[in-house]
């Protein structure tokens, strides 16, 4: 879903760049509050894992492929603030080192595939967590559904970019319908990978899943000394 240079006009791309800088700064400030030391390597791991998974394009209908975006997964694992920073690192590395995603479109891409699923998808996840029970299956299910929603939200945001600054001749309705349509399918892959990953982390280290923290809330204040003894 990486936007190359040229799809979206200069002013819109520039505005996206400015907005992305502001969002990254805001995330950094929020992430700094109460940041535990152990989250530092986890932020790196999240970026590394999502980079690897984004390389794995899976086939969807008619000679089209899709790949994980991972924003919602990142938000569930390390929280939306740190998660959006991890996602930003992935898009910068992809654009600068792998020539994937236009340089002028970097800000647009960071918002589209990073902030939109990190915050939009995570909002859905948080809502589902309020309704569903505190079980591993329920958390994994909520992760899958919110990951799908995050991808569809990103497709809607791309449509908005195209409406504002698209350089192509095709109509916004045609492009929007097609982009959203194909991402309804790609989102299924996102849901499966996100659900399985969250489920696997919950099985090995449930305390590291930010989005499931309320399940372990009671242990939090005394977690450090207690764990050291164990």
């Amino acid at each position, binding site marked *: 879903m*990486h936007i190359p240079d040229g799809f979206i006009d200069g002013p819109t791309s520039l505005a996206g760049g400015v907005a992305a800088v502001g969002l990254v700064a805001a995330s950094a400030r929020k992430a*700094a509050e109460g*940041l535990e030391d152990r989250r530092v390597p986890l932020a790196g791991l999240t970026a590394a894992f999502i980079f690897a998974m984004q390389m794995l394009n899976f086939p969807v209908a008619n000679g*089209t*492929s899709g790949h994980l975006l991972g924003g919602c997964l990142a938000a569930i694992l390390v929280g939306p603030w740190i998660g959006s*920073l991890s996602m930003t*690192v992935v898009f910068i590395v992809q654009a600068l080192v792998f020539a994937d995603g236009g340089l002028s479109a970097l800000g647009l891409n960071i918002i589209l595939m990073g902030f939109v699923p990190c915050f939009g998808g995570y909002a859905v996840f948080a809502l589902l967590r309020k309704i569903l029970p505190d079980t591993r299956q329920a958390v994994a299910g909520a992760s899958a559904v919110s990951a799908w929603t995050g991808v569809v939200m990103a497709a809607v945001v791309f449509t908005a970019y195209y409406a504002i600054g698209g350089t192509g001749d095709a109509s916004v309705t045609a*492009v929007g319908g097609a982009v959203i349509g194909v991402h309804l399918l790609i989102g299924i892959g996102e849901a499966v990978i996100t659900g399985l990953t969250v489920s696997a982390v919950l099985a090995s280290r449930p305390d590291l899943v930010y989005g499931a923290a309320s399940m372990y809330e009671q242990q939090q204040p005394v977690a450090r000394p207690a764990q050291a003894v164990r």
Partner: protein
Amino acid sequence: MKRLTNTSRFVIAGLVVALAFAFFVSPYASSSPDGLEKVSQQEGFDSTARDHALADGPLADYSARGIDNEGLSTGLAGVAGVALCFGLGAGLVLIVRRLRPTAAAPT
């Protein structure tokens, strides 16, 4: 080995998984255009894309320059990307940690 007992061990295990996906699985990824690329072709605006300014870089398009074996080239590019993302991701958050507000800090 089901329950890992400390965070560094978890991080190392996670990195091994990410490296394995990047090295062994990525050569088998679908090379079909992704959703957005396909739509741009169908709707006739793919021609508006400009060439990437860094398209000649040593790891551009996820292939390591100078490695003839395609699968190996992709796999090595993947490993480099995983390492870079881990280092920069952890590095960025390490810097962010320095911003951690002290008691007197304004909001």
